Structures are given as structure tokens and as C-alpha cells.
């Protein structure tokens, strides 16, 4: 346990020093603030809370941004250290390889959680400061969004580690990471949409659609945030969610599995790696 914390602490220290933490926090805060003010324009008084509008726009953006940031910090966690030569020295110390992976994970998650919580928290605080009235249900949806954003980040950090332990060059890791990002964030949904259109209104069996959604962590996140409370009315995800057997608990579980799976595989791959 101590080793995990020592390694996590060093990751955080480095993140602070090379201004990763600062850049991420500012980026997320700037986007959240922009959206919360742009987003308030079209609502007027339609009975939807201002925070709900922010949730819809912000979570749509999170789907693109958080996986990208997570892959950016994780894809060279192992292969980068291996190439720079620091990994060799680290592994000669009394630390196990799983401890290296999980320690780094702890550190990177802490960085991501801090940036998300601060960035999105500032947006909510500013909304409150400008006098918006926000209901309790909206608040809980907002908290769910922040929590699931961090969880989505965890998924992609774990995927990044898996890539990082499997390849032998940083460039390859970066290429694969971008490929994964494109595939899961853009191509998967487009393909799914294409299939639904091609079927010309014939509904897919509900179970199959659920499965296809769960197989992509970004869809799990989308379903979790856009299908409940005030957000469902705004986003159109409500229609999908109504036919789905997936409840919030299952969706969170899916995200957790999407984190644990790649993380365990990364640990196994790392233990076999000889460099």
C-alpha cells in the first residue's frame, strides 16, 4: 500500500511541476463556464433548470474531451518511462510491477478528479452566484455527471496503460491511443446510427442494443447522464433509455468493469514485458 502512495505522489508531483494539472483544470473550467453561459441563452423560461442545460452540453463535451485527456496522460505511462530509461531503475527497486501500474493509476486519477471537480465545480458556483435557482434533483444529476466523468476518465486511463504496456515505442502508443479515441468516441456511434437508419425503423431487439451500448464506455456515460431527470427531455437520449433495461447501477458497474478489465490486462502484460 505504501508503495502505491509513494508512486502516486510522484505522479502528482510531476503533474503539478510540468503544469499538466493546471492546464487541464483551466481547460475544463473554461469550457464549463462558456457552456453554462451560452447554454443559458436558449432556455428562457421553459421550465428546465439552467443546470440541466449545462449538464446536457457539458456531458456531451466531456465524452470527447475526458477520454482524450485521459489517453494523453496515460498512453506513455509505461512505454515512455521505458524509452526515457527511468523504468529500468524503478523496477530495480523493491516495488512490484502491479504496484507501479496501480500507483500510477491512483496518481493520474487524482489529477483528473481534481481537474474535473474544480473545473466543473467553478461553473456550478458561478451559476449559483449569478442567481440561478437550482433544484435538488439537478444538483444530484450534476454530481452524478462529475462522478461519472471521473469514472470515464478512469476507463480511458486504464485503456491507455494497456496500450502503453503492449507496445515498444511511444509513437506507436500515441497512434493506437488516437485510434481508440476515434473508434470509441466517433466511429462506433456513427456505425450504430447507420445500422439503425439502414434498418428503416425496424427496432433492434432491446437486449442487443443494450449490449452494443454497454460495449462502448462512452455510450454508457452518455446513457447515464442524458437519460435521467431534466436532461432526458433535452437530449433525446430519453427515447433510447425508455426502451433500455439498463439502470444507473448497471451503467456504473459497466464503467467500473471497463476500468478494472484493461487495468488487470495491463498488469498482466507489464509482468510479462522484458524491458
Amino acid at each position, binding site marked *: 500500500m505504501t508503495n502505491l502512495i*509513494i508512486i502516486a505522489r510522484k505522479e502528482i508531483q510531476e503533474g503539478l511541476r510540468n503544469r499538466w494539472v493546471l492546464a487541464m483544470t483551466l481547460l475544463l473550467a473554461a469550457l464549463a463556464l462558456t457552456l453554462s453561459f451560452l447554454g443559458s441563452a436558449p432556455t428562457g423560461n421553459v421550465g428546465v433548470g439552467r443546470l440541466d442545460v449545462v449538464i446536457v452540453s457539458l456531458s456531451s463535451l466531456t465524452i470527447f474531451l475526458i477520454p482524450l485527456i485521459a489517453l494523453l496522460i496515460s498512453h506513455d505511462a509505461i512505454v515512455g518511462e521505458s524509452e526515457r530509461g527511468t523504468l529500468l*531503475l*524503478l523496477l530495480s527497486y523493491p516495488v512490484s510491477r502491479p504496484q507501479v501500474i496501480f500507483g500510477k493509476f491512483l496518481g493520474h486519477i487524482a489529477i483528473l478528479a481534481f481537474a474535473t471537480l474544480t473545473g466543473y465545480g467553478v461553473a456550478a458556483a458561478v451559476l449559483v452566484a449569478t442567481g440561478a435557482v437550482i433544484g435538488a434533483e439537478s444538483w444530484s444529476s450534476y454530481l452524478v455527471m462529475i462522478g461519472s466523468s471521473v469514472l470515464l476518465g478512469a476507463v480511458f486511463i486504464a485503456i491507455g496503460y494497456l496500450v502503453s504496456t503492449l507496445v515498444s515505442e511511444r509513437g506507436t502508443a500515441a497512434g493506437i491511443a488516437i485510434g481508440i479515441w476515434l473508434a470509441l468516441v466517433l466511429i462506433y456511434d456513427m456505425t450504430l446510427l447507420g445500422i439503425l437508419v439502414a434498418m428503416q425503423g425496424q427496432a433492434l431487439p432491446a437486449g442487443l442494443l443494450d449490449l452494443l451500448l454497454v460495449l462502448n464506455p462512452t455510450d454508457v456515460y452518455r446513457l447515464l447522464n442524458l437519460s435521467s431527470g431534466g436532461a432526458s427531455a433535452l437530449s433525446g437520449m430519453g427515447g433510447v433509455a425508455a426502451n433500455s433495461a439498463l439502470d444507473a447501477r448497471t451503467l456504473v458497474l459497466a464503467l467500473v468493469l471497463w476500468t478494472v478489465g484493461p487495468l488487470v490486462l495491463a498488469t498482466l502484460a507489464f509482468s510479462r514485458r522484458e524491458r
Partner: protein
Amino acid sequence: MTATVTLAEACKQYGRVNAVQDVSLTLHAGETVALVGHNGAGKTTLIKLMLGLIRPTAGAVRVLGGDPARGSASARRRLGYLPESVSFHLALTGRETLAFYARLKRVGPKQADALFERVGLAPAAVDRPVHTYSKGMRQRLGLAQALLGEPRVLFLDEPTSGLDPALRRHFYDLIEELRAGGATVLLSSHALSELEGRTDRIVVLDSGTRVADGTLDDLRREARLPVRVQVRFTDGKGQAHRSFAGRDWTRTGAGSYETRVDAGDKIALLQAVTQAPDAIADLAIAEPTLDDLYVHFLGRAEAGR
């Protein structure tokens, strides 16, 4: 003497390449051993085997009584390692870097800080980020981390390459201190000449096999390299010089001739040469250098293949 590191017919293959082949080696407490060989001779692979970073394809490796690849934490705490061209996380300062490694070895911050002075890293440099460090400063920081926790066994991979002579001497002084304290020090080098008087034993490695193991004198004796005797005659001309004192001489310059003689026949030859002192203007004897020795062992292995 207690054995701290034992290799028994250790092999390591990468694909079809034999990086280390049937190497048997025992290192003892209080011993400084140099691992010598070309770049790519398998020195680093051998050190990685002893550190347990890679597993032997065949054979056995034992360090401080355990299998290093299984990585018992208590044994690892007593190992120090300085990788070849060591690198650190560039954004952190020297102090932060050493503190990180000290925590992993469960060494207190005070003990860690004391090492800066021991390796001669200036206090002004300690709190600067590592990316501002020169090669020598990095190497000092690298040695400081290797010395954490008073290691019983130290693996130093090319510790002096690229260092200036003053720093190099400081390095060897530190190594001598450690050895005197009962540590096993294994250092790899591709320069045999700088090891004279610094090590108890030399292990020569070529293409992954051990081609020689012993003290410098052992190696010299085993190699039986000829001594070169050079003579400059007062009378520069004359065919007689080529067979002077009953030996074959080769002309190396105006009136200068050279011959090679086995170490055992050296005195006899000198006696014969100095029979007629007037005929000789100058006489020089060149003992085989360490570089000659190095070429001899690595050349012999070449011929054996």
C-alpha cells in the same frame, strides 16, 4: 568469503539471439569486480539478470540468497543499481528525485540528504530541476540513489563513461570505500585501461560468453603476451641488425629495430643485447598494455568461433 551473487550456467536468449551464454560467476562480499567487454557483449544483460529485471532462459541466478526475479523486497533494499547513462524524471529537483527513491527503499530523508555531500553534488544544484543538470551531475545523482540504504551489492553499469578525470577518480574512491565496508561492487566498463589498481578481479565478456576471469596479473600470465623490445643502433645501416643477438628484428625507423619476446626470455635477450653497449644508442622495453590484453582476449574469442 561470503558469496553474495552466484550465476550458474546462466543463459538469456532474445528471440534467436544469445545475449548471455552459459555464464557462471560468483561474486563475494568485499570484492570489486569489473565486467569488461565490447558494447553489446552482454554486460548490461548480465546485470539485468542479477537484478531480476529479466529471467534467465536457462541456468540459475541467486543474489543475497534469493532468486532476484522473484523480487523479495528485503533483498532488493540491499541492492544498489546505477544504469548505463542514467536518466531521471526531468521536472523534479535532485532532492525530490532522491526522496522518491529513498521512500521506495524506506530510507529516511536525513540519510538520503547526507548522500548529496558524499557524492559531491553541490547544495545549490540539489534544489534545481534535473533537466538543468550536466552529465556529471546526473551521474552523481545516479550514484547517490544507488547508495541509498547501504547496499550489500552494487551494480554500476558503465559508471565512468563520459566523466572528466577528476570525477572519475572521485568515483573510484567512493567505490573503494564501499568495498572496504564489505559491499560487493560489480562495475562494467569497456575501457580496461582505467581499471588498473581499481578492481580485485576482471571478468571479460565477449558475445555473451565469459572468456576470462581473474586478477589483472592472472590475465597477463594467461595471455602470455610478448614483450616488445626496441633498439636504436649507433650505426644506422647494416643487414646484420636484422638478425642481431640471434633474433628476427623488424626495422621501424632509421637505425631502429623491434622484436617481440616472451616474458620468460626477456632477461636473456636483454643480456644478449647489452653485450656490446657501444653499438646501441637507445633501448626501450614495452610491456603489454591493458589494451593489448583486451584485444588479445577478445581477438582469441573471435578466432575460436
